[in-house]
């Protein structure tokens, strides 16, 4: 077999979309695939997708390791959610799990093999103080006592400053909406909470449509698009789980509009379809726009050694992500404060 030159993460998205494509890979191709997947935090998801497909023994060893890691991660994530549930139970307020923890708690495909970081929960804004007090009396403590960060979080962000549990060393992010208060898009937090779905243990997840809206918000506005491939993979899996339900696309359209995210939803659906061959409703996805190609370039900017490529494009997206979240004057203040401290 010839030498495979891997210039971007298209290899990964192609195999995730259609796992049988892995059969054509030589050892260099496998090395690139596994390294890119690890760098994009998608190795566990890839391992899950490749279950039942014959792979070389050494690739199998790596994939088995990733499955075991994901299993441990799942146990830990669910336990963190349970400990938060116990701490917050006396408040009788809805506690909505977000992102990875929500996917595994609800048994969704997006949770299979997924690497899960901190625990993210959404609570009603008027309960924020009570939640903070309850968590602190159950052993969670402030991470950074830096007054600038603290004020920044409390004034502008959509979450409390992160808390770490003093014994378990795990982090919790308490959100009261899904985008920073400064962002130009303002999702309807009350609607997110009103339509949340109750799980058996008393915790909640967002409704299927809001889950997708949150994934889109996270992809475009919460950061500089790094790790965006995993976000899109979450979306692909969420769509495949839910889109066969009667009226899904109609509800998705309504929800996107309600949260002011119609355009973002369209672009995300187009990217999903392009990268993962996701079946999407054509009217929601809309027609290709000129910017799509830059987004694709940014999302796939990773070579076969796991290195990020396209530095210039990455920087443009970094500034852009802050631009979305903050009015210009505030951006200058923020970048200055960051620069001064580093």
């Amino acid at each position, binding site marked *: 077999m010839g030498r495979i030159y891997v210039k971007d993460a298209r290899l990964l998205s192609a195999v995730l979309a259609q796992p049988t494509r892995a059969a054509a890979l030589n050892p260099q191709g496998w090395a690139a695939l596994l390294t890119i997947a690890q760098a994009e935090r998608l190795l566990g998801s890839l391992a899950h997708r490749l279950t039942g497909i014959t792979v070389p023994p050494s690739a199998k060893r790596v994939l088995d390791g990733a499955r075991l890691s994901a299993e*441990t991660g799942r*146990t830990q994530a669910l336990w963190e959610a349970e400990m938060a549930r116990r701490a917050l139970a006396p408040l009788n307020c809805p506690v909505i799990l977000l992102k990875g923890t929500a996917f595994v708690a609800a048994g969704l495909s997006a949770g299979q093999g997924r690497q899960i970081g901190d625990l993210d929960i959404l609570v009603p804004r008027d309960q924020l103080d009570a939640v903070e007090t309850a968590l602190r009396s*159950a*052993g969670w403590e402030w991470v950074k006592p830096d007054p600038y960060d603290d004020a920044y979080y409390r004034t502008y962000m959509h979450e409390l400053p992160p808390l770490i549990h003093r014994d378990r060393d795990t982090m919790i992010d308490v959100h009261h909406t899904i985008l920073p208060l400064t962002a130009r898009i303002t999702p309807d937090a009350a609607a997110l909470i009103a339509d949340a779905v109750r799980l058996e243990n008393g915790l909640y997840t967002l409704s299927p449509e809001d889950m997708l809206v949150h994934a889109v918000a996270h992809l475009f506005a919460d950061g500089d698009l790094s790790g965006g491939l995993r976000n899109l993979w979450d979306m692909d899996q969420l769509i495949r789980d839910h889109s066969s339900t009667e009226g899904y696309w109609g509800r998705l359209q309504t929800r996107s509009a309600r949260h002011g995210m119609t355009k973002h939803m369209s672009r995300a659906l187009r990217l999903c379809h392009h990268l993962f061959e996701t079946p999407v409703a054509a009217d929601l996805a809309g027609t290709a726009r000129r910017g799509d190609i830059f987004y694709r370039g940014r999302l796939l900017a990773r070579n076969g050694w796991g290195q990020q490529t396209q530095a210039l494009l990455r920087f443009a997206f970094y500034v852009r992500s802050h631009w979305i979240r903050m009015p210009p004057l505030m951006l200058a203040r923020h970048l200055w404060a960051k620069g001064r401290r580093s």
Partner: protein
Amino acid sequence: MRRDVEALYAADPRTGFRICPLDSLTAYYHRRSGVTHVVADPVPQILTALHGTPLSLEALLAHLVAADGLIITEDSKAALAERLEELCTIGLVLRI
């Protein structure tokens, strides 16, 4: 938080743990959390009593006296309440 006398304490069933007696201490692997606890008496006795059977503080104390020969002193109840509080904090026991 409910702290009245009616509170019941529960632990995961026996199958929720891997247990390895070491010496005077015992290692407990708690399956649900993935956390290992190395514990001293009377924690193994407390957990054995609570596996799958929620008990009140009074009932647990009576059980420990009957099954494990615990000798009651005047601060036994307070001491047991304290142990249970610690076990709740680490998640091995749930107050319901």
